[in-house]
């Protein structure tokens, strides 16, 4: 029980080390040096050399990495050479927006996809099922950068139900905050609704064919009760795994909607840092996102082990 969990965590730590190494290596991958990238083509050689020394880029790669890692562990991701703001501070400032978007989109996708999947699985290949499948395959092909403008046009410009752009903080009242976050969250949730629906529908149909479902029905339990209490739970494990994996696409989606709806989140920080060639900030944000992503997926894997009794038994055997 303990050993596989420890080895899974050890493996994730190894991946985190490699990921951060790759991110630091990225700086040295830039044609010329990162300092030249930051200062632009018109920079004098002296200025480049000075900035290189300041960023520690004149040292060998392994020393650069160890320095960066040592600082990062203590919560210091460096200071932006463009804005002068510490990168950690910028991340903390903008994290709530991205977090709220991602959580809202994930919840929305889960709720809608569970409803759709249950409606589909009640009678597979019925008219209802086929209609839902059609909608689902349309949603699967609508990326955030198409859904965003479409939603803005219909719901913000034509119907006027939502603000077009902008963000109001949670402290300014929950109503306007949710109103501003809903359209962007829907825009990134659409693809996930479709992906989740597909997986859960297939698993539900499989579970409903099992003997214990037949037994429950034979006992005279109602269809709804069997579906919700007996079938849904054992069918939801692949859904949980997929939700963890697809979080990556969701984070990518937040970059798109944050720049489209002008929301002050991590994605917007990343996009503007790339335009201003702020390599230090890009490095910090990318490392942060990748480490969080690895962490979430490790947690999902482990919870999966803990929740499903069958896996627990196999692991102890």
């Amino acid at each position: 029980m303990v050993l596989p969990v420890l080895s899974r965590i050890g493996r994730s730590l190894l991946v985190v080390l490699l990921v951060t190494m790759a991110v630091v290596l990225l700086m040295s991958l830039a044609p010329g040096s990162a300092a030249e990238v930051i200062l632009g083509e018109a920079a004098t050689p002296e200025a480049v050399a000075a900035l290189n020394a300041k960023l520690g880029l004149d040292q060998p790669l392994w020393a650069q990495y160890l320095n960066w890692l040592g600082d990062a562990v203590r919560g210091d991701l460096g200071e932006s050479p463009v804005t002068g703001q510490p990168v950690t501070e910028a991340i903390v400032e903008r994290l709530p927006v991205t977090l709220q978007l991602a959580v809202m989109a994930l919840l929305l996708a889960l709720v809608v996809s569970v409803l759709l999947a249950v409606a589909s699985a009640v009678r597979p290949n019925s008219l209802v099922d086929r209609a839902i499948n059609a909608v689902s395959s349309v949603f699967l092909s609508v990326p955030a950068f198409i859904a965003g403008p479409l939603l803005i046009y219909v719901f913000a410009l034509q119907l006027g139900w939502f603000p077009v752009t902008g963000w109001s903080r949670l402290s300014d009242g929950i109503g306007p905050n949710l109103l501003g976050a809903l359209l962007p969250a829907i825009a990134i949730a659409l693809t996930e609704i479709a992906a989740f629906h597909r997986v859960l529908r297939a698993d539900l149909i499989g579970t409903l064919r099992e003997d214990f479902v037949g037994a429950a029905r034979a006992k005279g339990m109602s269809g709804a009760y069997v579906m919700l209490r007996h079938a849904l739970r054992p069918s939801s494990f692949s859904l949980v795994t997929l939700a963890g994996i697809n979080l990556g696409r969701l984070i990518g989606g937040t970059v798109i909607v944050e720049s489209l709806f002008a929301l002050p989140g991590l994605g917007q920080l990343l996009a503007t840092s790339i335009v201003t060639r702020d390599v230090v900030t890009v490095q910090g944000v990318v490392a942060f996102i990748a480490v969080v992503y690895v962490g979430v997926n490790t947690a999902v894997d482990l919870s999966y082990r803990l929740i499903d009794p069958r896996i627990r038994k196999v692991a102890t055997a």
Partner: protein
Amino acid sequence: MTTQSHAVAGVAAQAEPAVPRVRRTRSILVALAYGWLFTVIAVALLADVLPLTSYATPVGFPRQGPQWGSLDLLLGTDTQGRSILARCIHGARVSLVVGAVAGLLGFVIGTTLGMLGGYLGGRFDSLVRLIADTMLAFPPLILLLALSSILTPSVRTLLVGLTLLVVPTFTRLARANTLAWSAREFVLAARNMGAGHRRILLKEILPNVLPALGAYLPIVMAALIVAEGSLSFLGLGIPPPTPSWGGMISDGKDAIADFPHLVFIPALVIFLTVFSLNQAGDHLRQRFDRTLHD
């Protein structure tokens, strides 16, 4: 003997077969999807031959709506008065080339790594899995953004980034498939007959792994076209004036209130292409991916 077998054959031909014929459902949607894909590919190939004004020169007033009469103005003009039809067609080239080349490169590299890892096992397999895990630890768009922060945007750097995106996916798929096939009796038989690793991998395992993996190619291409579109939408993809679908949406989005066609025409083109690729992928996977039937 011969007459008898003839008679049996005759009876069998008249009677209903014992096992009902497998009904192959031909969906209209799948046919339409293939139709759209062939059209897009054909138009992209013939882009220079078609009687269209260049995608870079204005053909009339900016922001005209779609109208009949002139091929250039069929889908209207963009914010600089350039033909939207011409830009959609030339944008198709970028999207298709990027999707196909990066998809195939990733397919070849990923399949090679995954097959070697799954077949050889041991340390090499652990290494392959670690590399794939590390690459998958970056959310896709974030990896592309990180690369675009240090490399100047061009078709070549875009191809490098997108290929990196695809490699781990195919590595994992190929590894899982190879593990399953390596345990089969015919592989053991080949080994007992003295076949070397190379022969077993190329002649015994590869032909079985290939169809299942190839069926994922359209879906991967769809994801790549979306990734390229996202990057171009953020202004970090193909540099202007070369048109790309994502870039066209980005150009038009500020005028969406008054001129929605600037956004909706390229959006529809991307949607139809991605939708068709997904449909084609589902269709191929149902036919070639054995894991879906078991």
